[in-house]
C-alpha cells in the first residue's frame, strides 16, 4: 500500500501528487474498529454508572452564538469531507463549488471563533495544563468546564481544521473563482506538498470527526450534545462530571 502518490511533472520529474487515498480506507476501517471495540468494551466490561438526572436546575454551558458556531462548523466540515471524498469514492456529484464555498464558510466561522474565544470567552478553560494529564488516570479528579478528552479533541480538531484551511486556501488560489483566474503553477513539487498536507489533514479530520461523533452520541455523553443544542446541562449532570470548584457557571 502506498502512503504518498507521485506523478511526473511537466518536465518529467517525479513530484508528489498527494496523499494516497488508500489511507482513506485505512482510516475509516481503523476508526470503525476502534470505536466498535470501545462500544463493546463499554457495553460488556465497563463499570456501569448510574446516569445523572437531566431534571432539576439547569446550568448554562454554551451561549447560543457558540452553539450556532459549533453547528455551522460541524456542518461545513461534514460538507467538506463529503464533497472532498465524493470523487475519491466514485460518487458523481458536482462537488468543487460546494467544497470551496463550504471551505469559505468554515474559514470565516473559525476566524470568528478564534477572535471570540480569545477576547470574549474564558480562553483558559480550554487550555491543557500538566494537571489535566492526571485526570484520565484518577477517577477522583474531575475536570472544570471541559474534560481532558474534550480539550484534547478540541485541540486536535483545531490543529487539523487550521491545517485544512491553510492548505485549502492555497489550493483555492489555484482554481478559477468569481474573483480571480488561476495562475500558472511555477513549482509543481510545492503544489504537490500542499495537496499532500491537505489530504493528510483531511484524513486526520475524518478520523477525529468520527471519534467526535461517536462520543457525542454515546449514552453517557449525550447530555453534552444536548447542551450543544439547548445550551444547558442539569445540575446533577454537572456535579457528576465536573468539579464545581474548577467550573463556576454564570
Amino acid at each position: 500500500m502506498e502512503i504518498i502518490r507521485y506523478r511526473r511533472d511537466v518536465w518529467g520529474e517525479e513530484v508528489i501528487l498527494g496523499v494516497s487515498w488508500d489511507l482513506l480506507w485505512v482510516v475509516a476501517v481503523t476508526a470503525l474498529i476502534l470505536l466498535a471495540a470501545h462500544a463493546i468494551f463499554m457495553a460488556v466490561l465497563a463499570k456501569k454508572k448510574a446516569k445523572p438526572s437531566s431534571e432539576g436546575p439547569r446550568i448554562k454551558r454554551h451561549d447560543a452564538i457558540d452553539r450556532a458556531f459549533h453547528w455551522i462548523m460541524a456542518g461545513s466540515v461534514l460538507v467538506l469531507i463529503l464533497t472532498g471524498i465524493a470523487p475519491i469514492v466514485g460518487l458523481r456529484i458536482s462537488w468543487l463549488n460546494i467544497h470551496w464555498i463550504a471551505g469559505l464558510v468554515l474559514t470565516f466561522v473559525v476566524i470568528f471563533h478564534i477572535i471570540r474565544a480569545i477576547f470574549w470567552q474564558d480562553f483558559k478553560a480550554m487550555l491543557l495544563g500538566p494537571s489535566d494529564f492526571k485526570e484520565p488516570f484518577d477517577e477522583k479528579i474531575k475536570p472544570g468546564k471541559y474534560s481532558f478528552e474534550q480539550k484534547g479533541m478540541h485541540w486536535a480538531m483545531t490543529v487539523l481544521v487550521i491545517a485544512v484551511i491553510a492548505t485549502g486556501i492555497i489550493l483555492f488560489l489555484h482554481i478559477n473563482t468569481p474573483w480571480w483566474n488561476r495562475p500558472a503553477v511555477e513549482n509543481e513539487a510545492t503544489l504537490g506538498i500542499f495537496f499532500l498536507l491537505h489530504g493528510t489533514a483531511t484524513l486526520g479530520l475524518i478520523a477525529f470527526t468520527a471519534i467526535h461523533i461517536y462520543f457525542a452520541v454515546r449514552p453517557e455523553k449525550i447530555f453534552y450534545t444536548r447542551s450543544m443544542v439547548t445550551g444547558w446541562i442539569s445540575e446533577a449532570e454537572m456535579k457528576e462530571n465536573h468539579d464545581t470548584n474548577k467550573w463556576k457557571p454564570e
Partner: protein
Amino acid sequence: MTFMHIGKDFTPPDVEGKVTGTARYAEDFRRDGMVFARLLTSPIPSGRVVSIDASEALAMPGVVGIFTADDLPPSAPPANPALAKDFITYVGQPILAVAAESEEIAEAAIERIAIEFERRPFVVDPLDTLVEGGPDPYPMGNTLIREGAAAAAGTTASGTAVGSIKWTRDQIASFRAGRFPTGAPWGEEWAYGDVDANFAQCTTVIEEPFVTIGLPHHSLESRTGMAYWENGKCYFHGSLQSQTVGHAQLARMVDVDPANLVFINENTGGGFGSKIFPYPMMAVTGRFAKALNRPLQLRITRADEFYIGSARSGMQGWIKVGLRDNGRVGAVDIAIIGDAGSGGGASGSSAAEHVSIMYQPEAMRYRGMSLYTNTTPRGAQRGPGQNEMAAVLSPIMDKAGRQAGLDLVELRRINAPGPDALIGPRQGTISSSYYPQAIDQAAELFGWEAKKALPRQISATKVRGIGVGEGYHSAGASGYDGLLRIAPDGKIHLHTGVGNLGTYSYAAVLRAAAETLQCSWENCVIEHGHGENHLPHSTYQGGSNTIFTETRSSHVAALDAIRKMKQIAAADFGGAVDDYSIGGERVFLSSDNSKGYTYAEVAQKAIELGGEYSGQVFAEDLNDTTKRSVQAMQGTGLIAAAKDTLPKTGTTPGFAVAMVEIELDTETGKFDILDYTGIAECGTIIHPKGLRQAMNGGGVWGFGMAAYERHVYDPQNGLPANVGLYQAKPPTYLDVPLHMKSGATDMPDPQSPVGSRGIGEPSQGCAVAALMSAISDALDGHLFNRTPVTADMILNHIAQNDFNTGDLKTNTF
C-alpha cells in the same frame, strides 16, 4: 526545337512500386541479426544532462547497448548535436539511443533509464530573448557569431559560436508596434542604391510589420536509418534527398573511408529541404552499428521526426515600400528577425533577396539577425526565406497597389523581372527570364479581368476574394559529373547520383542524355539509389536545382560518349571524328551511313580498346566519387564520364506566378478555393507530368502554409502543441480544389542544353502568396500581417473583437 524525349511524358521506373507498395524505404530493410535502436529524448527545453543511470535498462534481457553523446565526436554550440549532453536546447532533443533485440524491448528499456537533468532558462519567441534581461536559449547567448564578429545568419559551419545580442525595452516595444527600432544593433546588413533618395521620389509609401511562423517539414518518411558493417565496409540504408553529394560527409560522420561506404537509398519519402545533406542522426546509426558489430536500425518515430526533422524558420519583420507614380517600386527598406530555433539558421537575407528580384526596386536596404529559441532546429524548407516572404509580401504589396490605384496584376507586371533583371545586394544578373510573359499567361488562363469584374459579395454570408502571388528561387548550379555506360548488349546505362525524393526528377534529367545520344528511352537503364550501382557525383536535390544542373551533367556525359564513339568509329572506318554522326543508336560516317557501329558494337570495341574508352583512364577533374564508380565499371562497356564545365553566368532563376479565387464564409472563417492557376517560368518543360506534379504539390503546401500549418509552443514550459501529423495540419484532399490549373511559359534558358530550369520551390511560394492575397482581398484588403491566417483569425477580425494575436508574437496561435 524538336526533341525526342524532352517535353514528353514518360513513366519513371519507380512509379509502379509506389503505387503497388513494393517500393522499399530505409525502414523496410532487415538484416540477419539486426537490432533495433530507439531514442530517449529530452523532456526539458533547456539544460544539461548531469548523469545517466542505464544500469537497470542494460540488465534487461534483450538489451544490447546504449549510445550517448560520449560515443560521438565532441560538438559545440551552435552545431546541432546528434545526441545532447551539455546543451539541451529543445524539448524532444535526443539524449541517447538504446538498442535491443526488438523495438518493444528497446522502448521498455528507455523507460528504465534514469537521467538527472539540470534545467536552464528557456525562450520560445525571438523577441523575448532579444529584449534586455530576457532569457537566452543557450547559456552563452542567443545568436550566431561568425569568427568572433557580430554577424548572424547562415549555417552552422565550423568557426561559429553563440553570442549575445540585445535590444532595449524601448526598441523592442517600437518593433512590436510596427516601427523600425532606432539605434538597434543588427547581425547583418546590406544595401544597394540610395534608399532615402529613392523613397523621396515615391508617391506611395507604406510601412508594415509582419510575422511568419515556422512549420515542421514532417517528411512522410521519417529519417530512419539502418546500417551494418561487413569486411570493413559500412552499408547504410538511409533517407536523403540527394544520393551522392553528401557521400564524403556521411563517410566522415560514420567514420569510414568514403571508398568503403555503400549508401543505399532507392526511394525517399519527402525531405523538403531537411534531407538535402546527411543529418546528425545518421552518425548515431552508423557508429552504434559499428560499436555493437551488428546490423542496427534506428527508427525515427513520427514525433521524433517533428523534433529532429527540421522546420522552416519564422520571421518577425518590418518593411517599408515606396511606389513611384508610374507604379515602379522605387525603394524598399526591410528588417527581419529570424527564428532559427535551437540551431540552424534563419533566412532573412534570402527573404530580402526575394523582394529584390520580384519587384526590382531601384534601391533597397536589408537589416537582419538570426536568433535562437528553445524550439526545434530549423533548416532549409522549400524556398527558405523566399516563400515565407512571398506569403506576407503579397497582401502588403496589394495594399500599396490599391493605394496607388493600380490593378494588382498590373503592379506585378510593371515591376516584373525580365531578362535584364538584377538580384540581391550585389545586383547580379540572371541567366534568362520570361517571367512577364508568365504573368500574362496566368492572367489569361485564370481570367483575371473577368474575375475582377465579378461581384465581391456572393451571398449574404459568402464573399469572393481574388489574389495573385509570386514565387522565386535560384534554380541551377554547375560543375557536377555525368556518367553513363553503353554495354555490349546495346543497353545504355544512365548513372545518376540524383536522389529520388519523389519528384521523378532523378529520371527526368537523364532524358537529356538520351536526347543527346538520340537513343530510345526503352533502351536506357537508370542506375541510381545504391552505392554499388556506381554512381557519379551529382548535385544536391534542393533549391529547385536538379533540373538545370543535372540536365547539363547528363548532356556532358552523353557528349563524352559521342566523342568516344566517333573516335572509335573514325579509327576503324577512316576519316576525321567530325565526319561521323549518330542516329538510330548507331555511330556512322555522315557521308556513308553503312560505315559505322551500333552502340552495342562500339561498346564491345571500347572494351577491347580499353583506356579512356572503357574507364581505365578518366578525366582528372572528376570528383572522387565519380572516379571510384568509373574504376569499378572499367572494362564493362563504353564508359563516358565528364564534369559539367559548360558556360554559366549569373543566377539561374525559377519563377512562378499564381492566381487564386476563393469564396470566404464570413460566418465560419473558412474558405473554399474556387480556382487556382499557377504558371511556371522554368525554361523548357522537360517532363510535363512532373511539372504538373510540382505545381500541384507546391500549390497544396502553399495553401497549408497560408492557412493551416505553424509551430505552436507553450511559452510557460517550452512544449510544442502540434507534434503529430494531424496536429500539424498539412492540407487534405478536401481543403484544396479538385482541379488545379497549371502551365508554363516553356521558353528555353540559353544556359541549359535542353533549356530547362527548376521550379520546385517557386511552385509553393506563388501559391501561398496568392492565397494570402485572396484572403486579404475577400476582407476588403485587411492585412493580418501574419502567416498562417487561420479560421479563428478571420472570425475574430470579422467579429472585431481584438483577440487576434498581435505584437509580433510568434510560435503561437
